């Protein structure tokens, strides 16, 4: 589904990703872990199409297409979803209007008919239940006045509505208490299907107690320096990132 080869990216002349390789197939859950400043969030932004990066080298194929040539909105319509680390507030725009616009643009792209207000509200109510988000949140403006936990839940709610093929969740666990973490994790697990994939970007092993990854990768200095199964996360938790830094620097 996603194939990244030797991706090199810099921001204002400073290299951030230095030859990243990653293969993600349908049905898989990947976790990308790493210390601060290792390039995790840059990676997520590059996949979503944020454009203040210089792509120096490498290729990114998504469903056989050159992802780097697609506009951010086209990537979204083709099934890529980014769960933002810091979801932005859009005052005065109701969640309902916002998500109806999003879903209808995607449906137009897929050649499906537009949803009426009533049809949309029905779908929204179903998904709301799924991620356990209260209707009072959907009546409010996009993320405005939401607590940290509510914002993250709201990201998962949007993911449920858009039914993406590839979700990249950037530090979705940060700032969550244990109850909110469970709700977010349950949402992700519930939305998991054979034909979609998830990349979890996280700092801590904690989230991986609730979402079991098929693969764990360690990102350090802009490269994936170690990959393994879910046990790698536990090893990291125990030994810390210093251990990775040491073995990487030795090489």
């Amino acid at each position, binding site marked *: 589904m996603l194939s990244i080869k030797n991706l090199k990216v810099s921001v204002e002349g400073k290299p951030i990703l230095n030859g990243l390789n990653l293969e993600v197939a349908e049905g898989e859950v990947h976790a990308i872990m790493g210390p601060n400043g290792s390039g995790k969030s840059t990676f997520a932004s590059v996949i979503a199409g*944020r*454009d203040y990066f210089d792509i120096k080298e490498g290729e990114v194929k998504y469903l056989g297409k050159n992802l780097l040539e697609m506009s951010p909105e086209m990537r979204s319509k083709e099934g890529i*979803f*980014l769960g933002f680390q810091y979801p*932005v507030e859009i005052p005065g*725009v109701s969640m309902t*209007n*916002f998500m109806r616009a999003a879903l209808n643009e*995607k449906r137009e792209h897929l050649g499906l008919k537009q949803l009426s207000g009533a049809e949309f509200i029905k779908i929204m109510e179903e998904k709301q239940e799924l991620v356990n988000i209260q209707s009072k949140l959907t009546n409010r403006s996009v993320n405005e006045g939401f607590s940290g936990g509510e914002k993250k839940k709201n990201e998962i709610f949007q993911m449920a509505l*858009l039914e993406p093929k590839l979700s990249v969740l950037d530090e979705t666990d940060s700032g969550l208490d244990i109850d909110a973490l469970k709700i977010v994790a349950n949402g992700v697990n519930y939305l998991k299907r054979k034909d979609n994939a998830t990349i979890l970007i996280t700092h801590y092993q904690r989230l991986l107690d609730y979402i079991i990854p098929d693969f764990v990768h360690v990102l350090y200095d802009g490269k994936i320096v170690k990959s393994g199964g879910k046990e790698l996360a536990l090893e990291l938790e125990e030994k810390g990132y210093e251990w990775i830094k040491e073995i990487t620097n030795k090489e």
Partner: protein
Amino acid sequence: MQKDKNIINKFTEESDYKYGFYSDIETEIAPKGLTEETIHFISKKKNEPDFMLEFRLKAFRHWQTMKEPEWAHVKYQPINYQDISYYAAPKTKKPKHESIEDVDPELIETFNKLGIPLEEQKILSGVAVDAVMDSASIATTYKKKLAKEGIIFSSFSEALQEHPELIKKHIATVVPYTDNFFAALNSAVFSDGSFVYIPKGVSCPMDLSTYFRINSANTGQFERTLIVAEEGSYVSYLEGCTAPMRSENQLHAAVVEIIAHKNAEVKYSTVQNWYPGNKEGKGGIYNFVTKRGICKEENAKISWTQVETGSSVTWKYPSLILKGDNSKGEFFSVAVTNNKQQADTGTKMIHLGNNTKSSIISKGISAGFSNNSYRGLVKIGKNANNSRNFSQCDSLLLGDKCGAHTFPYIEAQNKSSIVEHEATTSKISEDQLFYCLQRGIEMDNAIGLIVNGYAKDVLKKLPMEFAVEAEKLLSISLEGSVG
């Protein structure tokens, strides 16, 4: 970063002005120029009573002694007042249309194209329309139905024939012809407009609206609207305006007067979409308008709601005099400028009575190379005990080549009164745009959403059908302005 900047800077694309067409209608146009003869000509055309002609002439003589105001934060080429035609009216066989069947089908078609059907059965339920093309009113709908309630809703010219005493009693009592340069000009040459009279205790059963259309070239439009709400009455009034796309500027100088008596309430909503000129700033309407209402007696209430997206230059300050004790004034405004448009708009709230209250919410949105200014005066007279004003003026900038300015003036002469003013300036953030894009929402739609969200506090004050139109208009005005 550079790429992001390009996205924001690419503001100058010409947005689609879908009302820019011209209708080929046989029109009677007065020769260019303005003299006392022109005024005699207009007055005679309209078969006006003598007092009206005298009023016009006094106004004209006064206007000749006045200078065009220069204090507004706008720049434009000087207007040659002798190079404008002051009267243009679609030619008709009958001087007055008894019913819609008498109206030239071409005219009806023009208004259909503008989305204003004049056949009553097709009209938005519950809205009566007075349609004005250039200098003349074409049709007024639902007149008979309204007359049953004692409500007068007609073109200004007709009202002068049928109710001269009412016009004589009220005209220029709120905006005297000496008020300002453009009001004096309007008083001299005004051609048509609407007259509304709501009798005592009557709540008008439908929204009343006037739709203004400039069609002819080289003419100005000078309409006059007068609304009188007697004790305990209520009316909601809407106005809309469009004009063809032309490379010359055209002048629109209107006067609106509202009089609200004891316990009466008037809501006045405007969606102003005159042709804004092209992206280089060529052409477009000069919209120099004087609007003022008076809450004459206690507990009267008047609110102005305006959505301003058109015109190349706007000079407009819908104001209120709160004379009656406990009277209330409101001003809600969204003003959008794109490309090279300039707007200097705001309000004046003059508190004279005790316990008078006013609220001002102004949302300015600037894009392209435009300049958008809020100018407002809050004046608390020395006898206006316990009066209150709250003002909130927000500016939103799209791009870094446009300007937003706020000129608030506060004159408080009474110690028991409270005046509050809040102002913010913000930029549409790239994070917000990217968030929308990532959810699959195209750039233009994303801007439309964000801007409509920003203006929501004002838009929700508009009557339902108007609000939907206004939301679309906001999005269209800024279409192509980013990315």
